[in-house]
Each structure stands twice: as C-alpha cells, then as structure tokens.
C-alpha cells in the first residue's frame, strides 16, 4: 500500500462539500491495511453526490486498483470480481456473452464495491429490488486484519450491515454477483407523455407488471393543474439479438468547471417546457447505454453547476400517502424555483432491500438536482425533509450533503444496530455529521 496526499482529485460528484485527504491505494486483494492515525474510508470513483464518500482530514483508501475479475460461471451467470471493478467493465466484457447487470444505477462508472456500499437501485427496482439483492457473497476486510466471508447464510449480520453500509464496516475486497440473462445489448423502449401526477400514477400502475424498467422525467417547474407533468419511459431487454443496435458514439465532455452555474430558473423553465412538448417516437429499440446511462455520454456533466457545486436530493415517500407527499414536494419545489432539468420519479417495488441502512423501500422516489445557492437552497431542502419525515420516508445518503442527524435517525431507525458493525478505525464526513 502506498500513500500520498492530494487536494483536487478526490471530491464527490456534487463538488460540495470540499475535503482534504491523505490517499492510500489498495492494489491487491490478499494485502491488508496499514495502520493510520486518522480514520479511513474506502473510495471508488466518487460518484456519490454529497459527503458519504468523503472523509475530510482523514484517509481515503482508493480501491480502483482492485480491478481484477476472479471467476465467471458462464452457465449460471455468476461473476466474482474485486470491489474496484467498474460496472462499465462488467458490461463491456459480459454483454457479448449474454449477461447483464441485475441492477443498474444511472451511471455505469461506479465500482462494484460502491454499488454494494450504497445498495444502489435502478429503473427496474419494482422487479429486481436493489443491487444488494443480487450479491451472493462478499469478503470484508477489517482494520484489525480479520477477513469475513459474508452472505445470507454466513456472517449474515455482517452481510446486511455491509450492504448499504456506506463503506463504514470495513473494505469490501471482492464480491460474487448473480447476473441477468439477456439476448443482446438492445432494449425496447416506449415513451409516453403524461399531463400531471395522476397521469404518472396511472401509467406506472399499468406498466410495472409488463415492463422490467419504468421511470419518469418530471417537469419540476410546472404548477397547478400541470403539477408533475412529464414523460414516462418503460422498457424491456430485447428478446432477440438483432444487429443494428450499436452503442451511441462519441459523447462529449464539459472540459472545465464553470465559474457560475449554467442552470438558471429561466433556462430550466424553458428547457422543461420544450422537452415536455418535444415530439418523440413512442417505440424504439436502442442500445442499453442510451436508455440506462444517457448522462454518461457527457463526461463531467457535474461541472455545469459551477464552482459552488450542487445538491442532489433523492427521497422516498409513502407508500401510504405517497401520492400526496409527492404532490406536496413538487409544489414546494415549483414555488421556490431553483430545481433543475433532471427530475426523476419512480415507484419502488416491494422487494425488501437487504441492508440495515439500505435506502430503497416501498413508496415513490423523487430525485432532482439543485445548484448550490447557499442558504436558500438548504432551507428549501429542509422544507422537503419536513414532508419526507411526515410521510415516514427517507432521504438517500449517497446523494446527501446536508440532512440533519435527527432526520437521518428517523429515516434509518436501524442505525443504532448498525453502529455495532462500524469499524473502529473507519469513518466518513457523512457519518460524523449524522451519527456523532
């Protein structure tokens, strides 16, 4: 293990808050951790938005060097790999062999370890549950040098603490995943416009049984009778591997961090109105990249929010009273302004998430970006938290940089049980904020 200090490279995706770390590199799965004076935290690609992947003043264990595959059972679709392997690398290698990730978050540039530690979910949650549902086994390395193989039957308590455990229970060295059989890279996608929230709930109600993936973009600037209008997307993996479905080419990058956010209220309102009315094909067959990871084509898209960074807010409300709670959230956002292009709505299914601190649970989830405009933005997010708390929901730690300790403890009542599994030498900026 080698070490050096760095300022700039190790930030979270929201670019807020900023943090300073000593960075050490994990390269080999048989090697242990060296001792550190300050608390440690595993780090993958820094795609968490807030401070759950930061450890200000502490040590980050950069795990991208743990990028080796270990075994693949091509009959059963079981892949064992080190925790620093990217989801993108798995897709590139195994889609041609007819296997797909069982659950995909909105970017494929996250590590397997990060996907487990945040128990990520995707557009197929109603069918597949969270990422942790498809982890068969994992190995956990603790700062005392001990290693535990964890699964539903072996060290099951450590397994459920580590899935969704935000990297605090130790380092996930490798994991074994159950993949999903597919015919090829193609996906059959349908898009349907809906005029308001009631339209969304009707569409999702009639689609979730027949479509593996469902999600909606909502116009967070619309109000009144149009509140919650948007575009519903539903999709299945194509059942045959036809030629002609190729990955979207090129893409582009936001080359520099812009001095100010490119995203003002007028821009958002205009863009959303255009996007909502834009004519579109109802049915098409596309490459999975276009459907599952559209933002991955714009490298460093987070830079459009400028030097002050941005907040992403993702919550789940309900299931009882979820519709009213979503309406209340959207109306508070529309009234305050300050939301962004990317507002996403989805109904979670009832498959239980395996982690003590897993975020996905039955209900309706809403996710959107807010450029950081200081106190006004955090006040609005506090007002959204009021709605989430009242509905018995939760806010997603992977996307959070500001929820209060009180909110966290209400959202994640198992947090006290979880504390027993936290490695005494591990911590994060997030954890110090909500648990101490």
């Amino acid at each position: 293990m080698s070490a050096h200090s760095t300022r700039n490279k190790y930030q979270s995706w929201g670019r807020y808050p900023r943090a300073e770390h000593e960075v050490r590199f994990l390269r080999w799965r048989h090697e242990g951790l060296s001792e550190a004076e300050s608390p440690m935290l595993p780090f993958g690609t820094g795609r968490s938005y807030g401070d759950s992947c930061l450890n200000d003043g502490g040590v980050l264990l950069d795990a991208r060097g743990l990028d080796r595959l270990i075994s693949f059972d091509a009959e059963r679709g079981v892949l064992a790999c080190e925790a620093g392997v990217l989801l993108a690398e798995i897709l590139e290698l195994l889609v041609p062999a007819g296997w797909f990730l069982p659950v995909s978050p909105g970017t494929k540039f996250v590590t397997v370890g990060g996907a487990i530690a945040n128990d990520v979910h995707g557009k197929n949650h109603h069918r597949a549950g969270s990422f942790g549902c498809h982890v068969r086994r994992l190995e956990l390395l603790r700062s005392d040098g001990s290693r535990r193989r964890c699964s539903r039957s072996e060290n099951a308590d450590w397994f459920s603490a580590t899935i969704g455990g935000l990297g605090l229970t130790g380092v996930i060295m490798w994991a074994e995943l159950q993949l999903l059989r597919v015919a090829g890279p193609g996906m059959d996608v349908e898009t349907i416009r809906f005029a308001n929230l009631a339209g969304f709930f009707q569409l999702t109600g009639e689609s979730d049984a027949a479509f593996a993936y469902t999600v909606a973009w909502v116009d967070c600037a619309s109000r009144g009778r149009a509140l919650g209008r948007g575009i519903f997307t539903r999709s299945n993996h194509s059942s045959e591997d036809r030629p002609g479905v190729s990955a979207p080419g090129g893409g582009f990058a936001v080359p520099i961090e812009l001095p100010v956010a490119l995203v003002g209220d007028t821009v958002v309102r205009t863009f959303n109105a255009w996007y909502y009315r834009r004519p579109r094909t109802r049915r098409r067959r596309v490459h999975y990249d276009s459907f599952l990871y559209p933002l991955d084509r714009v490298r460093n898209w987070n830079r459009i929010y400028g030097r002050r960074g941005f907040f992403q807010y993702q919550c789940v409300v309900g299931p009882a009273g979820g519709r009213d709670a979503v309406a209340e959230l959207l109306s508070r956002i529309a009234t305050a302004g300050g939301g962004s292009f990317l507002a996403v709505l989805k109904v979670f299914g009832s498959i239980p998430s395996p982690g003590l601190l897993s975020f996905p649970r039955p209900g309706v989830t809403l996710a959107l970006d807010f450029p950081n405009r200081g106190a006004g933005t955090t006040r609005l997010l506090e007002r959204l938290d009021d709605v989430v708390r009242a509905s018995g929901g939760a806010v997603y730690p992977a996307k959070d940089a500001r929820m209060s300790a009180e909110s966290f403890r209400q959202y994640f009542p198992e947090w006290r049980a979880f504390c027993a599994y936290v490695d005494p030498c591990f911590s994060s900026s997030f954890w110090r904020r909500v648990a101490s």
Partner: protein
Amino acid sequence: MSDPRRVLICGATSAIASEAARCFAASHDLLFLAARNPDKLSAIADDLRVRGATRVETAVVDLNDTTRHQALIDECAQRLGGIDAVLIAHGTLPDQHACQASFDAAHAELETNFLSVASLLTVAGNYCERQRAGAIAVISSVAGDRGRQSNYVYGAAKGAVSIFLQGLRNRLYPSGVRVITIKPGFVDTPMTAGFAKNFLWADAATVGRGVYRAMSRGSDVAYLPWFWRPIMLLIRLVPERVFKRLRL
C-alpha cells in the same frame, strides 16, 4: 481472427504488463506469466482467464536469478507448446540518492534493470533465432535516452537495455525475429504512486494497450504515449554543454 499466440510475460504482475496481458487475453492468446509474488500472480492469472485467455500458466520466479532463465524459457515452451512472443516487463525504480550514496544500491538496480534483462534476452533471442520467428519486446524507458542527475542509474540501465535491443534487432532481423523497444514516459503505476502528476502522465491501461499494439504490429521502437518521441528528440538535441547546466 488470427491464430492465438503463445506469449511469455516476465514481470507479469507489473501494472503495464498486466494491462498488456489483458489485451492478449481479449484476443484469446495463451499466456505464461512469470513473477516473484505467488499471490499477485494468481490474482492476475484469474483475471486473464475470465477475460478470455485460452490458457494461463504461471511460474513463481525471481528474475534476478539468471541461472533459471534457460529453464524458464524451456518450461514456457513446453507448457504452451512453443513461444511466439516474449514481453520482458520487470523492473524497479531506484532511489537515486541511495544509489549515489552506495554502489551496492546502484549495483542491485543495474542487476535487476539491465543484467537480468540481458540474460533473458540472450536465451529468448537464441530460442527465437532457432525457430526463425517470434517477437521480443522489452519495457525500456525514455529515461534511457539521456542521462539526467535525478535518475541516471535507472537511465543507465534502461539506456543499456535499449542499446542491447538495437544490436539484437540487427542480429535477428535476417531470422525474421522482431525486437521491440518500448519507451514509456511517465506512467501512473504503483511504482510512481508518490509522484505529483501532470498532463504528461499516462495511465497504465493506455500504455499497456500501446505495448500490445507495438507487439502486434512489430514496431521497432515505440514511445508511449507517442508524444514522447518528439519530446525526447528535442531533449537529445540539447548540446551537452547546455544540458549539464540544467536541473533535470
């Protein structure tokens, strides 16, 4: 698709070699990996098997032990049924100050970075010459193109490797054996983890792919990434009476 190649990789656990090996694995080649650490070797062998290598054999060996080199070539040829390509990638990055303070330190570095390579090249060169085919590549360095105060022990070893390869290339050309000198610039690997990085640094995966391409094409000298070729040309052109005054 071309026939699978049988490739010997010495120093297979180095970052650049393991990235190059992934490219060979993706084209379903047969690999024989030699390195010192058994745990690292088996982690890399597993990875290459999953990535498509038709076969992966390993040997735990200290490549500084030149008496074992002939046996290594023989074992590889026997287990893979022949050898089509050899990649020599082991090496260390010396602490220049330690080498200045003590010749023992310099001696050890020259042994690893030059003498062990010369020994391997001798047996591999003879093997390929006899079969009148094959490709032999060595990871040298841009540091071998000109001596600088900050790392001239390393530079001398790599420069010696480059000159050895020039001669070997010249000798084996009539036999149809290709000899490839790889000259990476700054590469972000565990060996250089402590350095501050700038735009000149390349990641190991990029350089590993470059090694694979150079070996597949049979380039003579490959600077990786390419922009080091003009940079090193300029650096070689600086007159010595000016160069000696520079702080490089």
